[in-house]
């Protein structure tokens, strides 16, 4: 029995997803490729966004992929860590901003 849910080798098999549904798989990968092309944002900026999102959704495949992608693009570790702090700040802020709801409830019920 497989001992872990994640295997690094599975990342390279991502494309196989299409084998069980060619139409949707192809549409997804076409879309994925298009999203990362240079547009109003550079490919470099998109790579940093992807890295930050990867950490937010805690996807080990994506962290692996976009750390490597960033290195290839010459993105520095300082830039990578700053991007992660943006993700962490939004994620932490999302918890904390709900504190207003808590405060509203306490203020309503508490004497």
């Amino acid at each position, binding site marked *: 029995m497989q001992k872990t849910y994640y295997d690094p080798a599975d990342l390279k098999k991502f494309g196989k997803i299409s084998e069980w549904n060619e139409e949707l798989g192809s549409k997804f990968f076409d879309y994925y490729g298009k999203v990362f092309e240079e547009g109003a944002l550079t*490919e*470099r900026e998109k790579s940093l966004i992807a890295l930050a999102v990867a950490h937010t959704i805690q996807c080990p495949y994506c962290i692996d992929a976009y750390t490597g992608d960033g*290195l*290839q*693009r*010459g993105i*520095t570790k*300082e830039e990578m860590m700053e991007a992660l702090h943006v993700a962490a700040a939004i994620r932490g802020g999302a918890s904390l901003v709900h504190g207003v709801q808590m405060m509203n409830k306490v203020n309503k019920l508490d004497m």
Partner: protein
Amino acid sequence: MIKSLHKRESELANTHKQLEILSNGIFKTGDLPTFKNKISETNQFPLKAKKLEVLQINVGYMCNQVCEHCHVDAGPDRKEIMTRTTMQQCLEVIKKTGAHTLDLTGGAPEMNPDFRWFVEEASKVGVEDVMVRSNLTIMTANKKYNDLPEFFKKHNIHVVSSMPHWTRGKTDKQRGTGVFDASINALKMLNAIGYGMPNSPLKLDLVYNPSGAFLPGNQMSLEKDFKKALKDDFDIQFHNLFAITNLPISRFLDYLIASDNYEDYMYTLVEAYNPAAVANVMCTNTISVSWDGYLYDCDFNQMLGLPINNKIKHISEYNEDLLKGRDIVISQHCYGCTAGAGSSCQGSVT
């Protein structure tokens, strides 16, 4: 400063040991195909030499730097230096060959005591492009080298310089403390006399090698980022960026093994194999000459001690007709030149 593998008496200083590593392990077990088997899949074996376009001459392994990734294992302790007699033999060949590019490399080629004489003589021959691979820091390493930019200009030398990143941290980590600042100063010296300026005939190109166990990204994107950063931060300009893949030999192989990255890196190279790059690999249009005049299909083969597979072995016996069409000598390090967009001393090949 780190020491060369030779100075450290590392077992990897022995090229047989390097070739053994590259032939055994994952390639022996069949986990990964050998380069020969891989190119055979597309009927590209044996690789054949085409018309000679680039004569690359290594004038010595001595260098003022000891870079972590150096495939030459160059350093201040390396004493292998080309003599004027061998240079004269090279000049005879340069005169009769149809090669459009003469590529002088090292070590730091400028440290060869006969370097200037050789450049002066070579530039008289009329080769279209005479390039010197300069590490930049040599220009400020000692007063006697301070006039190198002017010397290069006088002889219309195409300067090709290594620069692994536009930030101090990444550059110094790969090439040694202080290298970034010294390189920036040298680039400013070159810019000041016209090198690298838009539309200037004084060509200044940079070479990018990844500072770790990963492949170079897209050459055009990297060039754009390098140009913007160097212009914004230092007002420095250059012409083209060559993105070169690190080949798993010499000090880079040592780094891969020590950092437990060797197998993963070989998988990365093999997975990125691009058959389209095979057609344009530099060994098919290049001959590499070692400091002692022996001939190799490329600089990497020279450093692995893999001589040319031909009756002609030495520059003194050079015969273009006999060398043309020869089988190129290959091993697993060749995957480095066929990964992704391909890699050569002039950057991507596709």
